[in-house]
Structure formats: C-alpha cells, structure tokens
C-alpha cells in the first residue's frame, strides 16, 4: 500500500490495518519520520516538501516490489506526505509485516534507505536565518549502498 498525501496519518491505525483479523503475522515493524525543530542548531519554523506526482508513486511502488523480492513479507505500507509541515509533524511512515522479525526489520530499514535516495521529494526548510533546500546526506547514500553489496 502506497500513499502520497498532504494530510497527516495515524501510525496506530496503519499498523492495525496490516494486522487486524490475521493470525499469520508474527512481526510488524514501523518507522515514522518526524520534522525536528532543530536544523543544525538553526531553529526550524517549517519545512515544505515538494514532489514529482506520478514518478513518486512509481518509485515507491518499485522500492516496495524490490523489498518483496528480497525478503519474505506479508504486507508493506508506505505513506509519504508533501506540502508544508511544522516541527513535530509526521513526514513518512513505513510498515512491514512478516512471519519472522528479521525480514520485517531489514525490509523496513531497506525501504527507508531506498526511499531517501530514489523517491523524488525535495525539502525546503524555513529556518530563522532564512530559506534553504536540504542537501542530500552522504550518510544516506552509504546507507542505501549497503543493500547493493
């Protein structure tokens, strides 16, 4: 399940949707990314996420498909917001279900790493000191690279 949306999501509701009424799920892992008020010591007023409608959904579907090939997964949920967000707001949710915990953990971690380097989103920060486009982090590239070895 892939959703790209402006509105907020509820983590508990999304996890419940993956597990309710099922007795074959052994493990559910969720990751949520949240806007932090501090951007390198410079207080953040808001963050605006721009994306490429159409391509975003394609890339998220592709990332999900790759995770399903690599790990034994029962279900995958990816929700990514766009638009203006404030400190404390949720940005992204990834949730995975599997029979066993290793698959659920690794797939969720992979999904986040791949999404960070492939999904066409761009963050603009409105800080106290001005407006800045967020630069990609080397650590995100190396996190993604560990899955291709």
């Amino acid at each position, binding site marked *: 399940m892939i959703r790209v949306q402006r509105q907020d999501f509820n983590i508990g509701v999304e996890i419940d949707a993956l597990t309710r009424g099922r007795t074959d799920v052994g493990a559910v892992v969720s990751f949520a990314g949240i806007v932090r008020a501090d951007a390198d010591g410079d207080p953040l007023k808001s963050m605006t996420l721009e994306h490429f409608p159409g391509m975003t959904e394609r890339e998220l579907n592709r990332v999900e498909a790759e995770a399903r090939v690599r790990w034994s997964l029962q279900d995958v949920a990816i929700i990514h917001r766009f638009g203006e967000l404030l400190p404390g707001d949720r940005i992204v949710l990834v949730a995975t279900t599997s029979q066993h915990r290793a698959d659920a953990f690794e797939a969720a971690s992979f999904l986040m790493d791949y999404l960070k380097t492939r999904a066409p989103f*761009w963050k603009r920060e409105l800080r106290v000191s001005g407006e800045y486009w967020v630069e*990609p982090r080397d650590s995100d590239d190396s996190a993604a690279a560990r899955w291709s070895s």
Partner: protein
Amino acid sequence: MKILYFAWVRQKIGRSEEVVDAPANVRTAGDLAAWLVARGDGYAEAFADLKRVRVAINQEHSNFSAPVDGRDEIAFFPPVTGG
C-alpha cells in the same frame, strides 16, 4: 518535448514546466541541458554544475547521456531528499 523542473532548478528557471521544440542536434538529456543554457540566465544558473542536477526521462531516473526525443517527458531536479 515536455520538460519539468523541480525544487531549486525550478526556482532558478522560474517555471515548473514547459514544452519546447528542440533542434535535431539535441539527442541526449545533456544536449538538451546545454541547449537550454543558451536561453538565458536562469537556465545557465540552474545547469551551472551538472553534478548537482539529476534527470528523469518519462518518470524514471536516468542520466545526461541518455537519448531523448520529442515524445519524451524530461525532468531536471536536484538530488532527492525525501524520507
């Protein structure tokens, strides 16, 4: 040829999309960027350092040496920073 711009590439160029008739010698995404640069300051600024710019062709990640033609939708944008 439909072209899309995102994030600071869009801001520098001053538009989010346009349809252009590129000459026949524009055969790759890199040729297209070079041809656009000649159109004015905003383009020159956006494409000043191609290492900082990414390309998608028909909504798929690609690169500047990939071939393009009039039926393609080409997007130029900075490295992505989602998640």
